[in-house]
């Protein structure tokens, strides 16, 4: 299956995924996934177990695919060692939020910055601008342990945008957040490509958030890409609706 999420003639700065396959023992989590993510914010949706987080784990280097390639910004992403990918520009948040409790807000964000080899940029300035970009209105020396769930999510997002990110992966950032915080998060996510130039991929089950943030969306079901294109069209697609309702026939 091949699909293109977004405009056809985009230049650099896109992510081409070809025939990506991941197997865990007998389970095939990703089954020949091929898709192109164009610059901007792209949605990635699908029912539970569809392979969305597995796809992120491949991009982060936690999972080695059985087959397939990922070319990001013209480079072979899979050939980069996992811990070096943050330096290259892959940033992510986790489904279960992973802001480091023991550290302050500043240290949480500075940690990413100092391992990114950003020569010639001020760490304090970059970290503070990332913190203010996500709209986190707390003293940067506050320990993350004392923050609310919504604020911790923002710390994670600040970690994802600090410095020079190229590819920001957001894994259900709004899960468990109240409506007004989700709205704020959506406003932040919409600004990421414009502010940082990073291609942003948003995984979420909140369709209003996905439609509000993403011009284009790709849909996974049982490890296969079943649709991709402009978000409003994709969400009207019958195969997508039936996949979510659990009546899709998987070929």
């Amino acid at each position: 299956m091949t699909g293109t999420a977004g405009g056809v003639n985009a230049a650099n700065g896109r992510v081409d995924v070809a025939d990506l396959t991941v197997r865990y023992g007998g389970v095939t989590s990703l089954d020949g996934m091929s898709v192109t993510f164009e610059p901007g914010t792209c949605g990635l949706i699908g029912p539970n177990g569809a392979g969305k987080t597995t796809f992120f784990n491949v991009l982060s280097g936690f999972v080695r695919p059985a087959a397939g390639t990922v070319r990001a910004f013209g480079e072979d992403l899979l050939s980069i060692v996992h811990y070096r990918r943050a330096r290259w520009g892959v940033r992510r948040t986790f489904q279960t939020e992973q802001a480091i409790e023991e550290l302050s807000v500043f240290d949480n964000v500075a940690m990413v910055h100092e391992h990114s080899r950003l020569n010639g940029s001020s760490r304090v300035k970059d970290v503070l601008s990332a913190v203010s970009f996500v709209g986190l209105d707390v003293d940067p020396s506050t320990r993350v342990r004392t923050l609310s769930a919504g604020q911790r999510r923002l710390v994670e997002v600040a970690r994802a945008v600090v410095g020079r990110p190229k590819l920001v992966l957001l894994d259900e950032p709004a899960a468990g957040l109240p409506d007004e915080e989700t709205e704020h998060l959506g406003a932040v996510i919409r600004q990421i490509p414009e502010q940082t130039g990073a291609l942003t991929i948003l995984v979420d089950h909140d369709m209003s958030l996905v439609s509000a943030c993403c011009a284009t969306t790709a849909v996974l079901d049982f490890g296969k890409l079943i649709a991709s294109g402009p978000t409003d069209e994709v969400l009207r697609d019958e195969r997508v609706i039936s996949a979510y309702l659990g009546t899709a026939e998987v070929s």
Partner: protein
Amino acid sequence: MLDVADRTASARQRWPPRRPDARTLARAAVITVLLLFVLLALPQLLSLYYIDAMTQVAVYSMVALGLGVLVGRVGLVSLGQVAVLAIGAWVAARLLFATSMPYPVVLLEAGLITMVAGTVIGLPALRLRGLYLALITLMLAGAITVVLATVNFPNGGHGFTGYNGSSVHIPPIRRPSIAGGDPAYFRYAVVVAALMFLLAWAHIRTRPGRAWAAIRQSEPAALAAGINTTLYKLWAFALASFITGVAGGVLAGAVHYLYSIDFPTQDSITLLAVVLMGGAYSLWGAIIAALLLQLLPALLNNWGVSADWLTILFGIGVLQVLTTAPAGLADQAPKDLARLGRLLLALARRLAPSGGTR
């Protein structure tokens, strides 16, 4: 873009603060006063018996500090630290007999050589965590103990091991020229320990400390932040082993004679127990752990109570810590004292006749 820059400018005015806050200053003052008291007043107040015990406290505070870095900061449980201490003591004793190098140089070398050995012991940590890592380090420690029991500690003999079994006159391990007597050597040990605490503190407050905190909470999050988890885990083992090796060097001079029987494998388990009781997440916890491990037996001994009771006490203590105060005494004691203070204050108010009560 402008919007962000504006907000950043206002944030920069507030942060980072130019001057340290009152809390930091108070903490620095307390540490300075405490250190001066320990260095100047304590040797005058104590008998030689307790000065010796306090020298051991200084040595084991470093050992506990090393284990605290591993357990509290990185989340790696090692049950081989007493064997690492033995390596440090062995190397230092060998160098002290074989060379006339100044004591600080010997301590540094003992630390560095132990660092290499301890990092090798830590290699399984790259693959294992929790119980399995604890088991592997315990078994490696057991193996080291066996080797030490076979070749013995150096006692001024010839050859690589420097051990002479038939010797009648065994020379004691030398001490630094400026710290020959017990009170002076105690001060020397405290200064070395203070330097090691400073070293650990400098690590925790900067880049490696941040990386360790991330690794402890979540390795995927650490990797995603660009942290080379393999490097930083080995770094933690290297730092812990360096500190423990230096402690071994101080121990060698403190006791004058070293025997392999002084480093039983099971002591590493007791060490973990007291580190947990003292508080693995705080540097103070290492000092409390050393007091529990070395001063308490000395006190009991002086009172004619068998130190074997400590095994039971430590067992109860660990149980108590794991169930009610996971951050140990270093965290719990100030809270409890504050609670006690409030209680006493409330009591005093109630008892006072003109306290504004109706």
